[in-house]
């Protein structure tokens, strides 16, 4: 079950989206996130849905694979739905015992679910279609201007990409440790919240120790291969904007402009 987490993984295939410059994809993700927070309006969400559907279609990442990534956040989504449903004030539609469901509550809950799901799908689409190394390059170049104020952009980007590479390895390790502890009689499924939380300790301790050991070995392997920061480093795949990248920028900003127009023209919820 723990292997189902697909957030942060790379999905290998050939597509227009995969070939885009990582800076374009980073910007696109940002634009998409901003557009989701423009307001609560059905038309806005329809617009976002259309845009997302288009990108998913172009990326050729199977829908099943994307939806698998959502499973990890089901609890979060349920939480926000319940709270929004019962705690929003407004026109009462239904009363169960002391709890009231309002019309506004239903709308807000629905919007929140969609917003959360789109946020996750939108940002995981970026990692599905961009190799971590590429992503690092994009961040490094896109945020390069921060170097002037002494932000270690390269180092931060490198750390991020390594973290991403180790996600599947650490997940596999968690699985292994869980099985090893289960074989010794550990029980992760029964008991209350506190008991379950306590049961996590024998998983986390070995996991953290082994993560440190891995980090140490990896650092040594990187040093052995002459890694010494960004100074004097060349790129195997240097970033260069191509025709498609400019087109993507145009599409992206047309989308944002369209969304803002909707927001201005239709201020209500529907």
């Amino acid at each position, binding site marked *: 079950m723990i292997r189902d987490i697909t957030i942060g993984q*790379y999905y*290998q295939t050939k597509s227009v989206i995969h070939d885009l410059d990582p800076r374009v994809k980073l910007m696109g993700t940002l634009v998409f996130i901003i557009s989701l927070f423009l307001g609560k309006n059905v038309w806005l969400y329809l617009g976002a849905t259309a845009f997302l559907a288009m990108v998913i279609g172009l990326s050729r990442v199977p829908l099943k694979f994307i939806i698998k990534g959502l499973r990890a956040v089901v609890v979060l989504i349920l939480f926000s739905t319940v709270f929004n449903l019962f705690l929003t004030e407004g026109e009462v539609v239904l009363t169960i015992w002391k709890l009231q469901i309002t019309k506004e509550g239903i709308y807000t809950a629905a919007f929140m679910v969609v917003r959360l799901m789109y946020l996750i799908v939108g940002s995981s689409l970026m990692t599905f279609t961009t*190799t*971590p*190394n590429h992503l690092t390059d994009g961040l490094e170049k896109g945020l390069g201007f921060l170097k002037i104020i002494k932000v270690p952009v390269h180092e931060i980007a490198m750390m991020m*990409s*390594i973290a*991403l*590479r180790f996600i*599947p*390895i650490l997940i596999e390790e968690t699985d292994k440790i869980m099985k090893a502890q289960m074989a010794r009689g550990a029980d992760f499924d029964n008991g209350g919240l506190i008991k379950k939380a306590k049961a996590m300790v024998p998983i986390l301790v070995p996991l953290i120790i082994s993560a440190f050991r*891995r980090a140490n*070995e*990896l650092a*040594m*392997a*990187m*040093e*052995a*291969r*002459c*890694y*010494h920061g960004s100074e*004097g*480093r*060349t*790129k*195997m*795949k*240097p970033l260069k904007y191509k025709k498609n990248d400019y087109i993507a920028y145009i599409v992206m900003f047309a989308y944002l402009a369209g969304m803002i127009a909707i927001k201005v023209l239709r201020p209500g919820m529907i």
Partner: protein
Amino acid sequence: MGIVKTENLTFEYIRRDENDNVEGINTAVDNVSVEFKEGEFIAILGHNGSGKSTFAKHINALVMPTEGSVWVDGMDTKDDDKVLDIRQTAGMVFQNPDNQIICTLVEEEVGFGPENIGVPTEEIWERVAKSLEAVGMTKFRNASPNKLSGGQKQRVAIAGIVAMKPKCIILDEPTAMLDPSGRKEVIRVLHELNEKEHVTVVLITHYMEEVIDADRVFVMDAGKVVMEGTPRQIFTEVERLKSLRLDVPQVTELAYELKKAGLSIPSGILMKEELTASLLKLV
């Protein structure tokens, strides 16, 4: 001077208690003076804790000697300005394939080293193609390292070092975590590199089968080099190897026992064919 030379190399781990007082000193490498010539295939044998890994890290300037010196291609590892040149001359492959792969694509992984030493973009691509070819992993250049078998991962790690065009490759128990077929793959690739590209190979291992084809073998115990010679010379001394907690290849042991039982066969037999031939002579 050979490609790697050490003189009176000593390395001590200092153990401290909680108050930073010296509790004891472990001598991991003890007064080792060796010289490897360019193009040689060197094997270093020793059981766990014999100091062979610490010795290997000295050649790559990852560890500095407590006493004595190490020269790689004439450069002293204590010279701070030469560290990058040394690491480029003597590349190192580690034991755990998962913990030394940095990138998520095989070709990017192989290109990581050349990127670090500032090779121009086009040349990186050439080197990556060539190195992957040399280890027979061209087919997997666009795969994720997570999806490869242990032997394949180790071959990618070797390609990553080969792409830096080192004169010498040091491998610290590269096969310890592999299955037998993965082990064979890696050793075959190493011999090919040694023969075709004339790369000096320093293989650190505790599997006897892997050192049979080496040019010279060093046996380490408690930080010291206790035996040195060709594989045949080393494996003649079955009893001594056993006292060092090392096994000999099965064939060698069988031949040794047969000889001890009174058969007149030569000592230091390494191959099945040799044993069969010498046994047939007796009939």
